[in-house]
């Protein structure tokens, strides 16, 4: 019972933060500029900020709508879907970093230098990448249900 409550509280907090990030993404895009603070960077382009922001917002709403009666499989599936949306967004961002890190620059070299390669993975990161580790908690609950 206590563990169930902890899980519900955890996903409620995650849902609120994710929803806030989604709204921030959309607002920054509407303001036509990007925003950076520490390790966080909110992209301002229509594709990642606007379209992507809508997906992060949807993920947050999935979390929030799934926390009530958490034990029910249909409710739990909404929590899982919230995490899947975060994985999609973060996966795309990480894949984009990988594809940027491999080729060399415009100077004509075929492959990137070691420093350039590592540098591509340095912060700041988009909200979905920051949310990724927290969204993985759902995997524990999936295995627990099995």
């Amino acid at each position, binding site marked *: 019972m206590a563990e169930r409550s902890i899980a519900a509280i955890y996903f409620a907090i995650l849902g609120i933060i994710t929803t806030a990030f989604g709204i921030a993404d959309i607002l920054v895009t509407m303001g036509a500029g990007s925003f950076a603070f520490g390790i966080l960077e909110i992209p301002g382009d*229509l*594709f990642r900020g606007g*379209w*992507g922001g*809508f*997906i992060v917002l*949807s993920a947050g*709403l*999935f979390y929030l709508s799934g926390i009530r009666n958490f034990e029910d*499989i*249909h409710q*739990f*599936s*909404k929590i*899982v*879907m919230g995490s*899947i*949306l975060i994985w*999609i*967004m973060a*996966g*795309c961002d990480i*894949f*984009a970093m*990988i*594809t*940027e890190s*491999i*080729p060399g620059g415009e100077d*004509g070299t*075929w492959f990137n230098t070691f420093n350039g390669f590592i540098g591509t993975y340095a912060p700041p990161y988009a909200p979905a990448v920051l949310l990724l580790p927290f969204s993985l908690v759902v995997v524990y609950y*999936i295995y627990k*249900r099995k």
Partner: protein
Amino acid sequence: MKLTIDQRWDIIDKIAKQTVTFGEYKHTLKDAIGELTIKPLTGVPIAIAVMYAFWSIFGSFAGTLFTDGFMVKLFDGYFLPWMQDIFPGAGGWLYYIIVGDPLADNCFEAFGMLTSGLFVAIGVVLPAIFIFYLMLALLEDMGYMPRLAVLIDTVLHKIGLHGYAIVPTILSLGCNVPGVTATRILETRKQRFIMMTLLAIFIPCGAQIGIMEEVIPDTMGWVLLYLIIGYFIFGYILNKIVPGKSPEFLIDVPPYRKPMLSNLTKKVWGRIAGFFKVAIPFVLLGCGIVNVLYLAGFIDWVGNVLSPVFVLWFGVPEATAGPLIAAFLRKDLAVAQLSVIEMTPYQMISAVVLVSIYFPCVATFAMMIKEGAKELLGALAVLFAVVFLYGGLIHLIGILMGVA
């Protein structure tokens, strides 16, 4: 031996007892997620996320990694200078057709059969087609496509189609040729006609999308938005004016499954092989024919004749006449040609939309003839009306927004 009805039911009962397990079925997590992807309220955000992933991976893999990362360096840095060095008769007509502009320093501007032609086919389109078909095969084999068909069924009914029309539509985003063939899954002539016409006009192929990603990455979203809006507006009108029926459809939605590597390989290879057979010869030949038409002065002549329409009605420069002629042979080449013409961003958006809607490429044209001459003539009549009306409307929107 003849059995009575009761005896038959007895046998059925015996078989059922041996083979059927009765009990309460408990929904699994997979079932619950499957339901979420079909219900509109939850399914639409998921579909939007899937499409986001599709285009994000497409752009990163084909654009950033392969074309910009390696192919541009290979073709512009090594292949083009090598061809310019070894091919004899610089400045001659044969040189112009095969290698293109002797002073060009990149393959987009050279426009020779073996320079721009090969660069577009191998350097830009091949990686784009590969990743497109790989992701499409993944979605098909996971079982997401039937869910997308169910989800979009209501919307597609508004334009006289049903959920299954998503299959030819998405296939056409790879190449219009298999897309046109796939219209056969639609039941009535009306549905097939609407689908074929919309594909030929509003769905850009993977080759064209790959080039757009490369030459107009910032404004590509607007081009696609105009095409999607046109797809639904003209689909709605066609549904109202084309006689015939648009029946409902029943579909068995399979459970989500883990895709099998062997199936994925077969599907992707089959489709890529089709691209090698159909598209690569057309790209090279198309490039050659366009060069011959330029040399013969035909394209300049057409440009002069049609310049009032281009400049006054569509709001694009006179020089876009050439790429529009080339678009009949290859739309990807036409977009590449447009990229070197001086234009405002809005004129570029209008010109690329015009290239997309103006005429199906010759390979699609050939496939449409196969599907029926009457349908083809009808589609062409619609097409000319659409180009004129929609091209003018886009210009008008630009004027009203103060950007044209």
